[in-house]
């Protein structure tokens, strides 16, 4: 009965996977490249104090920045290329799921007529607060 739906879903799954791979794979190559140079270490040291509050290593700043400025998939690609503990991956995932693709999604949000500043502020606040809280309770 839902054969056609299932087939369409399969096609959509492949399409989503393609869309995702186009971003995840280059980001993975990029971040791994950084890790082969002293650059990732410098980035890590620079962000270490701020990331400590969130229970994350300094290099976790890379997926946070990429996830918020590019999109969620870029953040996920960067996450995959770092070696994170289960706790760190969970905190990062929660933070990114509240606040990501800020540039692109803001355009969509604005079209509905809701105040943009309110939405962006809510998302970033949620991300930071949830990071701090989950660092304490996990």
């Amino acid at each position, binding site marked *: 009965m839902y054969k056609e739906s299932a087939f369409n*879903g399969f096609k959509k799954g492949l399409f989503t996977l393609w869309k995702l791979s186009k971003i995840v*794979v280059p980001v993975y190559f990029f971040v791994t490249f950084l890790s*082969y140079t002293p650059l990732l270490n410098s980035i890590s040291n620079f962000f270490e104090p701020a990331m400590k509050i969130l229970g994350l290593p300094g290099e976790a700043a890379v997926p946070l920045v990429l996830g918020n400025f590019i999109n*969620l998939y870029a953040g996920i690609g960067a996450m*995959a290329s770092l070696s994170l503990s289960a706790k760190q991956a969970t905190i990062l995932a929660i933070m990114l799921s509240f606040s990501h693709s800020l540039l692109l*999604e803001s355009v*969509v949000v604005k079209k*509905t007529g809701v105040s943009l500043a309110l939405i962006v502020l809510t998302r970033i606040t949620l991300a930071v607060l949830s990071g701090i809280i989950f660092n304490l309770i996990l």
Partner: protein
Amino acid sequence: MDFMAYLKDSTMGSLNSVFSMAKIIIPLMIAMEILKDAEILEKISKRLKPISKLFDISNESVFPLLIGMVFGLVYGAGIIIESVEEENLGKKDLYIVMIFLVACHAIFEDTFIFAAVGANLWLLFITRLIVALIVAYFSSKAIEGVSKDIQKYG
């Protein structure tokens, strides 16, 4: 820098990630497409009157809220813009639905993909849902307070 080691690390690692995502995304998309075509969300949203009561929004707002939560912000926004144009959604309804949705959208897709890169699936799922409920509830109370003040003091 050991270039061959870099190439091997990146290629194997990224292919591995894509593969573990494929195992999740393809079955999920099949399930979601069936969900959409069976119009199950329409049926569920009619039974979710407690939600509209909790947020003090119209019953018609529950459907766009549910759509955005399951299928994502871009698809959800399409339905929301439609509802606003058809005047099914008031200003307060719109704000509450959008506040809920920015905290929690595409809940299955995003959560499952995060699980593929090592996050705890249930914790992520439940946190997003509960936080969205709390934020939307207090926003509703705040909007109510402001509109009462406006009525009182003009």
